[in-house]
């Protein structure tokens, strides 16, 4: 049995970063305050001391340019890991991402590749209001040419950094900011996980709950409550949001005949809509009830705690949605 260590999600990301930095001299980390400050979420605390300022690079506030520089450095033979402090600021870099990172390999006829890893914190739930609470993973999952990961567990928080660095193409890792203090057991000698597969986090036969990232906890909680009502919920953690593991989704729905998608993004045009459409297309005849979505209310995120809670998905809302299918 492999030895595991108890650590937080934050430490797990750091462990992944440290391993990557130690094992490959081409790897370096850059972003706002990743160095001296130790990272806005303290993820990179200590890395500057260990790896020095050439490899742990604090950037000015210039999201478009330091993401673009990450693309350029990847083209130039490095393996950059770019931290965008939060998804909210990634809008400023979206042109570089969509028009350059995602296109260069295809558009150059396969001549150039962009082995770039971009990490960012995402999500709401911390009373940071309308400009600091976005969940835009669904937008990223729309972009051909990039891969999108959403570690929901402490193990994946570490492993996905390593897995991302094995990819020859741009990979975006979304770390839900509420997960950083989460604790779990990690085998630090484990290699990179298989990121082509979703994970069944709980088995059940009555309904499939499909989610990812910061909503996994709420979904697990809901599954627990549903068990008390004798509804066996199967919980699927998508893990990789692009490309989607549709086989995992469809096979579970084929068994349960009912599904609810839980996604912290605003409902209209969410990734949850895509999952619903995928089930429509691939498991229509299996369905005993329409696929339901539990998403955020369609409003800029309010600061006040009670309003923010009302806006976000919750275990109660998930349970209610499941009940409505029976």
């Amino acid at each position, binding site marked *: 049995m492999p030895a595991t260590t108890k650590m937080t999600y934050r430490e797990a990301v750091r462990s992944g970063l440290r391993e990557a930095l130690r094992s490959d001299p081409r790897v370096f980390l850059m972003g706002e305050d990743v160095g001296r400050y130790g990272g806005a979420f303290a993820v990179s605390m200590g890395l500057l001391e260990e790896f020095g300022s050439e490899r742990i690079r604090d950037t000015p506030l210039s999201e478009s340019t330091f993401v673009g520089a990450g693309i350029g450095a990847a083209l130039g033979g490095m393996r950059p890991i770019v931290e965008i402090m939060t998804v909210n600021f990634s809008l400023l870099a979206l042109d570089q991402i969509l028009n350059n990172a995602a296109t260069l390999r295809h558009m150059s006829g396969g001549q150039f590749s962009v082995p770039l890893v971009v990490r960012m914190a995402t999500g709401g739930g911390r009373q940071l209001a309308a400009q600091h609470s976005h969940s835009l993973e669904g937008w990223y999952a729309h972009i051909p040419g990039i891969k999108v990961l959403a570690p929901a567990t402490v193990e994946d928080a570490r492993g996905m950094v390593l897995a991302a660095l094995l990819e020859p193409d741009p990979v975006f890792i979304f770390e839900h900011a509420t997960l950083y203090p989460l604790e779990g057991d990690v085998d630090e000698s484990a290699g990179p996980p298989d990121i082509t597969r979703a994970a069944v986090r709980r088995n059940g036969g009555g309904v499939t709950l499909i989610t990812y990232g910061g909503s996994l906890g709420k979904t697990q909680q809901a599954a627990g409550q549903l068990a008390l009502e004798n509804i066996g919920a199967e919980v699927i953690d998508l893990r990789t949001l692009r490309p989607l593991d549709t086989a995992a989704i469809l096979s579970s729905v084929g068994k349960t005949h009912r599904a609810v998608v839980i996604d912290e993004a605003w409902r209209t045009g969410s990734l949850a809509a895509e999952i619903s459409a995928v089930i429509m297309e691939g498991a229509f005849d299996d369905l005993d009830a329409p696929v339901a979505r539990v998403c955020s209310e369609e409003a800029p995120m309010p*600061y006040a705690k009670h*309003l923010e809670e009302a806006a976000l998905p919750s275990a109660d809302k998930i349970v209610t949605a499941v009940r409505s299918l029976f």
Partner: protein
Amino acid sequence: MSETGSVSAFGDRDHLLLLLREMIRIRRFEEKAAELYSLGKIRGFLHLYIGEEAVAVGAMQALTSEDAIVATYRDHGQALARGIPPGSLMAEMFGKANGCSRGRGGSMHFFDAPRRFYGGYAIVGGGLPIAVGLALADKLQNRQRVTACFFGDGAVAEGEFHESMNLAALWGLPVLFLCENNLYAMGTALNRHQSQIDISFKARAYAIPSDSVDGMDVTAVEEAARLAVQTVRESGFPYLLEVRAYRFRAHSMADPDLYRTKQEIETWKTRDPITTFSGRLRGRGLLNESDLAAIESAVGAEIAEAVSFAEAGPWEPVSELTKDVYTAR
């Protein structure tokens, strides 16, 4: 203890005491906010202005009620100096419906239409284009107003700084760009985020007049701001004023402040804008202990009242969560 600050340049003793009182109001307001944050009454991000009070207080003297303000997420000082009632701000930080943004914005997003306070912006640099647009609206409507846009040294690195300076100058728009240079963008020191650290010099790349001033000296800031605002108002052209200050507290309540030395902070604290200014006033016989006590007690009462106002405020009903996403028709 700087002796260079001018003391009587701006009118009478009343005005000087007003400057002092305004700075003290901000200081005490924020000390209370920090305390309430520890108690969990205030949540989310809280960015304190402590140490930088002279910037907002000095600058606001130069603006009229007709002028517009575009602020940052570090907006308590800017809002108080602009005259937004502290109760309305405190209630906002409590998330109450009697807050200046109905509790939806919190510390980073103060709004106040009557005082033309167009919001604290939490995307660094995001307020600059807004200010350019407000000034454009004034120009197109032939109003002689000024839009004052606050932003930090960190924002200077963002593309929007460059674009906004160029557009404002190109179109001749009455914007006062007011850079609060506190030498740090979060944990990144000025010389580690700017290849050329003289911010006011950068204005030349846009043919914009500029100046820089000691932001620890409230009358110096007022003087520089008055000149700047007058220039903008008369010329209808933008101006960049760099105000050099220092924040005494961490970037936010979450910041362990590991990137600068205690020594550096202590050195700057000897230039505390409140103590140095009150010292100067005292030295010239314009302030005595009882004046100060009176100010402190009035401010204390005002802030206590603000907290009560916040405590007593109602929560916005959850049923109104999506109200004002769109205008009701």
